[in-house]
């Protein structure tokens, strides 16, 4: 994968490993170099009419970490992601990315800044092949104009080849070579999720927002997905913010966890801290009954 190394700007920031992390990916964070705050969410409130979706939420995301947002149904997790990438505009609060503060995020600007996301309900082009779907993720980086592209003239052709090569590296990375030319609609759900991730990776993001990447998957598909998320995080140093329902997954792969309930933040910390937080236990993990 040497030629993919351009994917993350923060290549090589990880310190050499100690002996402990040899067998597999479990001990994430044991010796990972987590950087400064890259994304800072401050006092966000969002309401739809009388419904308060988010109330005064603040948390930060550090560079190279895996940050999870958890909470019961309707807790406001997806709304939070939608605020970050500009789908919703919060009524109050601000979001800072790499030191720049915005009162609302603009979707296009967010993408240009290097924040990519995947969707809970898969917003893929069902009739298009896997390659073409991932290629759409390169859209922002294609410089030649529509006219040149349509005619495949000189520079447009060369550019297309470069982007295609990049896409092929993603296909290799996600191990979907066998499905490269299959229309996405024909693939099983777990693989569609992988294509969705592939398209987000095609943007060469600095921050990757994953909205329930493991939802609806079987155990094996979940394990695969976990491995890909961790590989992205470790190989490219990409910061990952993910929403997830599966507690096992969250506790295993995240460095820090934010817990939301009814639009409020009720916990924030390492998986262990969150697991032992009384309020979290009663609200989300459930009391023994």
């Amino acid at each position, binding site marked *: 994968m040497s030629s993919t190394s351009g994917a993350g700007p923060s290549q090589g920031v990880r310190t*050499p490993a100690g002996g402990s*992390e040899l*067998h597999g990916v479990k001990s994430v964070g044991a010796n990972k170099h987590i950087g400064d705050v890259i994304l800072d969410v401050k006092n966000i409130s969002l309401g739809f009419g009388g419904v308060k979706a988010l109330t005064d939420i603040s948390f930060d995301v550090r560079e190279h970490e895996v940050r999870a947002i958890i909470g019961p149904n309707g807790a406001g997790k997806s709304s939070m992601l939608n605020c970050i990438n500009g789908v919703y505009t919060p009524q109050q609060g601000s979001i800072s990315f790499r030191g720049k503060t915005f009162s609302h995020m603009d979707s296009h600007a967010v993408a240009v800044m290097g924040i990519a996301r995947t969707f809970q309900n898969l917003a893929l082009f069902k009739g298009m092949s896997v390659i073409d779907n991932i290629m759409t993720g390169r859209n922002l980086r294609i410089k030649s104009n529509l006219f040149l592209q349509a005619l495949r003239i000189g520079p447009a052709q060369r550019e297309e080849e470069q982007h295609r*090569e990049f896409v092929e590296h993603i296909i290799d990375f996600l*191990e979907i070579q*066998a499905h490269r030319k299959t229309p996405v609609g024909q693939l099983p759900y777990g693989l569609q999720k992988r294509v969705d991730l592939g398209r987000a990776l095609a943007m060469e993001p600095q921050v990757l927002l994953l909205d329930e990447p493991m939802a609806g998957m079987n155990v094996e598909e979940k394990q695969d997905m976990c491995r890909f998320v961790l590989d992205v995080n470790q*190989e490219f140093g990409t910061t990952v913010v993910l929403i997830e329902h599966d507690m096992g997954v969250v506790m295993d792969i995240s460095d820090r966890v934010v817990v939301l309930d009814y639009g409020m933040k009720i916990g924030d910390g390492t998986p262990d801290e969150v697991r032992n937080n009384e309020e979290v236990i009663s609200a989300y993990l459930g009391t023994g009954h």
Partner: protein
Amino acid sequence: MQTTFPRLLLNHAAQRPTETAMREKEYGIWQALSWADLAVLVEQLACGLHQAGLRRDEHMIVIGANRPRLYATMLAVQSLGAVPIPLYQDAAAPECVFPINNADVRFAFAEDQEQVDKLLEIREQCPQLSNIYFDDPRGLRNYDEPGLMAVDDLLAAGKAFAAQHQEFLQSEVSRIKPDDVAAMFFTSGTTGNPKGVVHTHNSLLNRAKAGADFDKLTHSEEVLAYLPPAWIGQNIFSYAQWLACGYVVNCPESAATVTIDLKEVGPTYYFAPPRVFEGLLTSVMIRMEDAGTLKRNMFQFFMSVAKRVGPTLMDGKPVALADRVLYALGNFMVYGPLRNNLGMSRVRVAYTAGEAIGPDLFSFYRSIGINLKQLYGSTETAVFVCLQPDNEARADTVGVPCSGVEIKVADNGEILVKSPGLLKGYFKNPEATAEVLTPDGWYHTSDAGFLDAHGHLKIIDRVKDVGRIKGGANDGAMFAPKYVENKLKFFPHIKEVVAYGDGREKVCVMINIDVDAVGNWAERRNLPYAGYTDLAQKPEVYQLIKECVEKVNADLSVDTLLAGSQVSRFLVLHKELDADDGELTRTNKVRRGFIAEKYDVLVDALYGGKTSQFIETQVKFEDGRTGSISATLKIEDAKTFTPVKAAA
């Protein structure tokens, strides 16, 4: 002329440097490696390994899927006079311990993280394993084990060394003699530890050449390397014959893309075990079921033409003009596109071996114009013992002895082989060697069989499993359980069979139906059923199975040797035989003795003449829980036929 593997490589590199030696699909493109490139790669690897301390006669393991660098490493190891040991890439870590320690291995080539993890896991048990080289660095960035190194780094070191020692490779290669050990293959012993089969350059290359001459293979063949490199067959087809003939070996992109890659490459020389051919046929049939009426009818019509005419045409026998025309039309409309879809448009020679192939399956491929043949051989014989000539392919034989091979049938029916391709011996195991290799050079195959009237070898069973009927009408007749089981298993409705008869007066079998095939059959007949156990005991299903058994009996009755093995009674088991319950081996072979003990009431009922028997069995579910299944099984008699003496 006797030669060695590295010398063949250098010859190709000198004589046809720009021609393609190997291709690998990567990033969606077939990347070609010329003979000259390959020679450079091998030189750098050899120099790197020499510098790292790999010595003559030392062993090095290679573990991974088919990749140019894996084969280049084998060549580099051989160039230094050391011995490569390919291991199965899907072997569990503990299974690798014995070979590594047995051969005192210090050096290993591992394809990727998966294989590296495996080797690191057993490092404590194999303390001498000092150098591990990995090809694909993905996921290995943070590994900091001593002696773990990327092949890229090894190549860089080797390149520097090669620049200072220009003649190093040449002089190393010139010191290797054809009778030196070339490679070692571990065979999975059913009992005890695996045994290392030692082959010399000459034994492997002699057989590779014999096979190539037999089928007139040239340097323009295309081969797809998709079976495990640790298997001798793969080694012969994609390594020994590759170097002997100088053809192109293509490495698929990944295990999942093999069928796509097959279509793209269009191999001319192809090998697959029967299950692969079966899988391909099934996928075609399923797609045909979903096709439109017109296409389906056309397919059925022309397939019936193919069935009638194809094999005869393939064997080069005369065929009526009308049939020829019809077949040509079918070739244009159905067989040609079908071959293309299977990736077999260009196949000139295809082989299957390893287990018995069903006659219908075999003739299907021959009828659509694919020259599918069978061969006989094993790890110990460097594969080629018997091969079927182009016009004499049959489902029930394995061909005629190929050049250099002598065959003798021992008194107990065992096939003995003498050939230049025989193993040098088992590694550090003179007792086992003495058991199979007699001082006068005969190798005991432990297969029972005979040469038929046309000089073709016919395999019946393993020698130790062949028994005799005792008492009754067929007293003293030969009984070959696997032969009977296979004949029954060729029916799509039957999944597993266990046959008994040794030391008894008649043959009885226990059958597992194929729940998909029979379930489908039942649905088409509006036959409701609740699950396997229920379906298995339906009278209609018993009738269906009975017809299969009686067809086999009719077939056996004309067999001069095995007419006495006709099945008298049968039952359909209430549960599927399962490796988790110890009834099958991990490679899905029935464990006859264990099953006889576990189901002794059923065996007693079969031989005791009962018509039904209650049984309750403990079963283990996949999640580790246990439960029990009980049922009253019906036992039925099958019609047997008076043996027809061969019309002579």
